[in-house]
Structure formats: structure tokens, C-alpha cells
């Protein structure tokens, strides 16, 4: 029982530490996501879910929910980076599928 209580308290503490995303945190996270999405754009390989996550991040921030906003912005950045990785890998990998 004591173990459970300890674990619960720890969860609450760490949870509380993560809960306080600020507008500054959001701006940083958004800037990173936007920069990555721009790079994906230059490679002509943006993904729809990235755009959706960026929109959701901005909407959450406008509503003052910076926890959600930061989470969405980080998701957008991850998606954008995955799309960049795809484009870069495909620059050579595309040839393997060509009918010869």
C-alpha cells in the first residue's frame, strides 16, 4: 500500500512539473515546428497531419491552453521531421522501384 501511495505522489509531482507550459514555451515549440515544416515545403513534401497539428497548436494557444498548444506543436515538429526524412531518403530510394 505504501508503495502505491509513494508512486501516486511521485506521479502527481512530476505531472505538476510538466503541467505549466507557458506562452513562451509555446512560441519556442511553434517556431521549431514551423521551421521544420518550411524545410519540408522546400522539399515539396509536406504532410496534411503536420498542417493539422500546427493549426491545432495555434488554436489551443489562442484559447490559452498552452499545455495542449505545446503538445500539438511538438507533434507537428515530429511529423515535419518525419516528412523531411522521407523526402531525403526518397531522393535516392525512388530508383529501386522503377520498371527496367
Amino acid at each position: 500500500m505504501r508503495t502505491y501511495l509513494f508512486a501516486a505522489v511521485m506521479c502527481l509531482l512530476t505531472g505538476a512539473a510538466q503541467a505549466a507550459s507557458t506562452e513562451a514555451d509555446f512560441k519556442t515549440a511553434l517556431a521549431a515546428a514551423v521551421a521544420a515544416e518550411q524545410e519540408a515545403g522546400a522539399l515539396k513534401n509536406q504532410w496534411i497531419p503536420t498542417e493539422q497539428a500546427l493549426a491545432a497548436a495555434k488554436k489551443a494557444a489562442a484559447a490559452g491552453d498552452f499545455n495542449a498548444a505545446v503538445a500539438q506543436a511538438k507533434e507537428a515538429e515530429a511529423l515535419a521531421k518525419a516528412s523531411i526524412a522521407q523526402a531525403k531518403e526518397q531522393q535516392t530510394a525512388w530508383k529501386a522501384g522503377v520498371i527496367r
Partner: protein
Amino acid sequence: MRLRLKSAQAAILAGLLLGADAQGQALPGQALAFDRSKGNCLTCHDIKGGDAPGNLGPQLADMKARFPDRKELTAIVFDETKRNPQTVMPPFGRNLILTDGEIEAIVDFLYTR
């Protein structure tokens, strides 16, 4: 050792065998697998319980026998291009289409097929 099941336990066991959880609901993995915005598996695979499947991929049946190693099946859902670079199966994990939890749930469901 004699195994005696109480009626409730028997019901749960039957439910699990039929692809349901203890409450008799369909497994969450089935909903994820059939959801077009999630696994969308029926687009390419024939799976018992689903309608109008596509045929780009093999039928998903006999999964326990075909994939005794859960890690192997999970890896296929996560990124089949690792095993087959020319696959048309989307890399559900690598491309962040599904979360790790969602993949786990779908793999759980597939093992009931």
C-alpha cells in the same frame, strides 16, 4: 491440477476467445484497425469482422500460428519497409500514423484473428 472455472470466469474466457474484453465489448484494437483514420487495415487486408476489404495485402487470419513472435508482427505494423523495401504497407509507427499504444492494441486484436 484440476482447473475449475466459475461462471463469470468462463464468460470472460469465452469473451477473450471471441475477440472481446472482460465486459464483452469488441477489443479497442478492432475499432482502431477498422477506423479509416487510424489503422484502416480493411483497405488492403481481409480481416474477419470487416466488410468490403481490399486485396493489396494478404488475408489476416491464423495470426497466432503465423506470428508466434509478437515482436515480429509489431515490427511489421511499425515499419514493414524494413523487411520489404518495396512494400505498399504504410509505416504506421515510423510515420507517426499510430501511437505505440495504438499499435499494441491492434496487435492484440490481430492475435484474435
